[in-house]
């Protein structure tokens, strides 16, 4: 009897929390089909699926452009991160060189510095180099990451040393080893880095906001933020814009949901 009460309470609680988690997104989608009048009359469900808000939003701000900018920068910075990270971890794990220990120590220290402390001086650097409002400026600082180097390091350390020795004895170059052995064998780790780096790039806000003032160079996050400020209290339009920016990443999430969750868990636990 007592356990039944527990179970029912638990079910109610989970249902409630699921509602609280999902409702904002469902409501966002509903409001995007509402008129202002429908919204202020506190209706939950729109009377019809009228796309006029979407037309208006896309007419007012170039969200398509923001979307393409975001895809472009997130993809490029992910690919660059993968390259720099794989090369660096290979050097750290498979090669011995003087200064390795000290270098690793310095990197561990850098790991402790919060991004927000660095971002403003990076902005000065990019501004001084004249890279404001350029893709290079948006991408460059996120083309290498201490965090991912350490993550892949811990991943590669589990790989047998003799794999590399065998490749050397039979005459494979380091590049051949990286392409034919290292990358296929560390696929899960590399996927994790790729997924997390892409999501990071997709959601980045502070950096594009500092680096871009040309509306053509905006990414989805700062584009949405700017749009919200322009439209102040026109919530149906804002929710439409929010829906437009959220749908792609939600689709992406549902395709890769298991990989994304295990990536977050793996990097989380490793720390």
């Amino acid at each position, binding site marked *: 009897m007592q356990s039944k009460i527990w179970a029912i309470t638990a079910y109610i609680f989970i249902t409630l929390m699921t509602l609280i*988690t999902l409702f904002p*997104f469902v409501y966002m989608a509903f409001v995007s089909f509402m008129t202002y009048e429908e919204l202020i009359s506190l209706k939950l469900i729109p009377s019809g699926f009228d796309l006029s808000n979407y037309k208006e939003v896309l007419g007012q701000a170039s969200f398509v452009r923001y979307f393409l900018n975001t895809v472009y920068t997130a993809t490029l910075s992910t690919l660059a991160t993968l390259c720099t990270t794989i090369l*660096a971890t290979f050097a750290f794990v498979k090669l011995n060189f003087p200064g390795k220990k000290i270098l690793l120590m310095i990197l561990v220290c850098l790991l402790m510095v919060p991004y927000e402390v660095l971002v403003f*001086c990076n902005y000065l*650097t990019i501004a001084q180099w004249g890279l404001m409002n350029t893709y290079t400026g948006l991408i460059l600082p996120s083309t290498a990451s201490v965090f991912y180097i350490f993550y892949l390091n811990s991943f590669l350390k589990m790989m047998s040393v003799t794999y590399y020795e065998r490749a050397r004895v039979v005459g494979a170059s380091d590049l051949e080893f990286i392409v034919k052995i290292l990358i296929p064998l560390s696929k899960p780790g590399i996927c994790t880095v790729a997924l997390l780096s892409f999501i990071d790039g997709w959601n980045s806000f502070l950096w594009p906001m500092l680096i871009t003032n040309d509306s053509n160079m905006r990414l989805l996050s700062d584009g*949405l933020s700017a749009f919200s400020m322009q439209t102040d209290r026109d919530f149906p339009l*804002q929710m439409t814009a929010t829906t437009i920016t*959220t749908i792609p990443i939600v689709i992406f999430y549902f395709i890769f949901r298991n990989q994304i969750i295990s990536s977050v*868990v793996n990097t989380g636990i490793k720390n």
Partner: protein
Amino acid sequence: MRKSLKAWFLLSPALIIIILFNLLPLARTVFLSFQSSSLNNSHFIGLENYITVLTDSRFHQAIYNTAIYALAVVPIGLIISLIIAAILYDFKKFQVVFEVIFFMPYIISTVAKGSIFRLLLNEDYGIINNILGWFNIMPINFLDDPEIALLTIIIFGIWSSLGFNIVILLSGLRNLNSQYYKMASVCGANKFQQFWLITLPQLLPIITFLLTVNCINSFRIYTEVYTIFNGKAGIGYSAITAVYYIYDKFYVVNRYGEGMAAAVILFMLILIFTIIQNLILRKLTRR
């Protein structure tokens, strides 16, 4: 010799970026914090920026808000997550479905989540005030009342923090040693006792880890404030946080030196916190 040359060569792409965008900005932050604020004609002014910042009541407000935010969001978020994770762990069938649902907010950008909450929390036609109305509670002015601004950010912070915590806790629960439970069932312990006496102590390392991560993330909040209040830090800076303060000094009023002095202070606070946390963790694991 040739081998170490090769190693440095392979490291160079990553190292150059890390030096330019991690190491140098750190040095520059410290350097600028001792300089007068204008960029063109700056000179060494010693600790003046630090004194200005430390005596600035708005900075006190920012640190106070950040601390209160962390003290509220971290434990409450963790407890709710723990309850959800513990219940979900008993769900055999739909566990993964719920995990996917609860984790979803984590991957959506803060700006998007913030703009939805700006609507939900609206005084006149926000759903939340509407629901509170059913219980005869007067509408709360979440967005335009300086007294409530911090609470608004805290609610949003708790809601946002659940996904990550739940996923990590669930993975911790899945790795627990099931033998203890068989033993406990044999001894006749009920579900609640089992959770309290067996599950919780085993989860302790993961909970400490989540405490650290959540605390550090709390110290860094900025985007949440910016988006909920649509580009402001609440009415009259009532919801200002440490990072927002740095942003404001640096980017809005262009007082670089003071902004960087605040950044150094924030970094020091996080560093001290991390060290203390590590010492506690080491003590916990040694036992």
